[in-house]
């Protein structure tokens, strides 16, 4: 039975940030080990003080529920200025109503439970992100470091 979970987190939108943190913390709670490799926009999740500022875009996201039930808003409306903020507020409202923990809380839990968090050096170089901008418990490494971890019989997931 696998005792290790290796996750790649590539996206920095509000909805995409949840699954890696939920699964990694739950894995440790189930006596497994977990690591998350944050690459490209995934790095936004582990920037200091940024987790609760992530947004969700309605553009090209037709599965997003409509703001007013029963009234269909064309997806193209999403390109209008301010629509990302509207969608983000809407989703944060749903999360709160469903008692879902904030991303910052999950991130704190991940740190507390010793989820290994690896920031992709190459992505940091591409995007001009410095280690000081990231939360303290993050280590900076490359593909080989993640693969070395994952190669030890890990369940590997990508988000």
């Amino acid at each position: 039975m696998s005792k290790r979970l290796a996750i790649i987190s590539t996206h920095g939108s509000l909805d995409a940030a949840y699954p890696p943190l939920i699964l990694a913390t739950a894995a440790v709670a189930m006596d497994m080990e977990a690591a998350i490799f944050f690459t490209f926009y995934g790095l936004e999740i582990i920037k200091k003080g940024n987790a609760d500022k992530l947004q969700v875009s309605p553009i090209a996201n037709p599965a997003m529920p409509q703001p007013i039930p029963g009234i269909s808003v064309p997806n193209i409306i999403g390109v209008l200025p301010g629509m990302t903020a509207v969608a983000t507020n809407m989703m944060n409202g749903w999360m709160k109503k469903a008692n879902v923990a904030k991303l910052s809380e999950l991130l704190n839990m991940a740190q507390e439970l010793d989820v290994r968090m690896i920031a992709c050096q190459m992505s940091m170089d591409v995007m001009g992100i410095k280690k000081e901008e990231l939360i303290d418990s993050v280590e900076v490494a490359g593909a080989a470091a993640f693969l070395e971890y994952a190669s030890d019989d890990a369940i590997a997931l990508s988000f």
Partner: protein
Amino acid sequence: MSFQFDQELDCSGLACPMPILKTKKAVDALQTGQVLKMVATDPGAVPDVQAWTSKTGQELLGHEQDGPKFTFYIKKIK
């Protein structure tokens, strides 16, 4: 259904994965043989607590539902 318990944990109003994370911490703090009573309102906690005890080797003595509240009795085995 009711069991003797040594510690109580209220996870009411918390969604996945918080009840499991808090349960893990609470059980970690118990002595072997002690029992945790955990209350949750997330219906997903029922399969999740079962999966958690099964994977971690702790014992789910029983669980019951009272309206929106689910109560679990978990014995620390190791």
